[in-house]
């Protein structure tokens, strides 16, 4: 009959334990003594220690298991990230031997990312989409008819460059207005026919124009409002598109007509050279 009294036990518990240990096999006590009999029936040292300090024993083992999981999970996460990066690197790597094949692809990748589909209206009130410009080289300028000086200069430049390139290749100049509220198709026709009848004038609803300008990365904004009149600030760029409606390059205001024509010719020759090269490769 061993009675183990721990300091953390309240007096009632000590008494209960004392009683149970005195009569271990008595089955007629109150409910709580049954519970204790189950634990302390054998009057084993170990069992008694476990029941006396159930809460204390569980606490340290609980916190130890939680903190011990941090380190392995961290290791696994870092290892997983490393595996992902390595896999990504291998996927993106271009092996050394594939240079000839990727030569053509890298040239297309390096093109500026302008361009996209559009639905606009030309001076005859016909619907024009980007598919109508396929099959020939085109030069697109975004402007407006009420421009004081820059607009007319640029359109004049475009017309002159088209003239210079006339005997080499036909290039289609396109004028897309960024002021559709004032530039109706008839206004565009009257404006453009003074420069060159070949220039295609496109306008549309303000939403269509805004979407097109966004695709071509053209900045435009109403400035200088004076009653009903205003000017439109814009980036005066001309975009050269190849027959597949992909942007080859853009020309800023600094070019004059002769330089423009020369550079357009250069781009055409370069693309026709690479086309023939890729054809040769395909045959080989």
């Amino acid at each position, binding site marked *: 009959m061993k009675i183990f009294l721990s300091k953390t036990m309240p007096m009632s518990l000590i008494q209960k334990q004392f009683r149970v240990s005195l009569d271990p096999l008595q089955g007629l006590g109150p409910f709580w003594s049954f519970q204790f009999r189950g634990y302390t029936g054998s009057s084993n040292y170990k069992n008694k220690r476990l029941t006396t300090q159930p809460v204390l024993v569980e606490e340290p083992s609980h916190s130890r298991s939680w903190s011990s999981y941090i380190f392995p999970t961290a290791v696994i996460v870092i290892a997983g990230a490393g595996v992902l990066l390595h896999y990504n690197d291998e996927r993106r790597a271009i092996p050394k031997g594939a240079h000839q094949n990727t030569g053509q692809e890298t040239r297309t990748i390096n093109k500026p990312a302008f361009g996209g589909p559009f639905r606009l209206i030309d001076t005859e009130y016909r619907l024009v989409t980007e598919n109508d410009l396929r099959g020939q080289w085109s030069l697109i300028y975004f402007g407006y008819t009420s421009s*004081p000086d820059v607009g007319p200069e640029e359109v004049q430049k475009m017309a002159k460059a088209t003239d210079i390139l006339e005997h080499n290749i036909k290039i289609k100049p396109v004028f897309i207005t960024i002021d*559709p509220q004032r530039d109706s*198709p008839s206004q565009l026709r009257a*404006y453009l026919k003074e420069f060159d009848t070949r220039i295609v004038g496109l306008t549309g609803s303000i939403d269509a124009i805004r979407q097109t300008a966004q695709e071509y990365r053209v900045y435009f904004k109403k400035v200088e409002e004076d009653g009903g009149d205003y*000017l439109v600030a814009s980036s005066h760029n001309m975009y050269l598109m190849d027959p597949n409606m992909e942007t080859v390059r853009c020309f800023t205001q600094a070019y004059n007509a002769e330089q423009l024509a020369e550079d357009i010719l250069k781009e055409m020759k370069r693309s026709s050279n690479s086309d023939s090269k890729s054809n040769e490769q395909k045959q080989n």
Partner: protein
Amino acid sequence: MVMASDKIHYDVLADARNSCYKARDSFYACMEKEASKKPTEIATVGLLYPAECKQFRDEFVKQCRPTWVKHFDRQYCAKKKVQRLLDNDESRRGPISLPQPYTFKP
């Protein structure tokens, strides 16, 4: 679809533009010629011009749209400013920033 009115703005077509450019050029030439005179009249955007050029100014304003007048005036002012900076004219220098003696006494 709702389109803008089909009005044709004739004051931006080639003839109107050319007469506007001519009036503008004659006005600015007058300003250059009378540069020694004191500018008393007010143009737009802070530009002043002497009274001798008044008739050219009126012609200029008549031929061109108001927004264009402002645009050209602003351009002219910018050009004059750059010219002044490049002129190396000693008479209009601002305060010179020479190294000052150290005045802070702890």
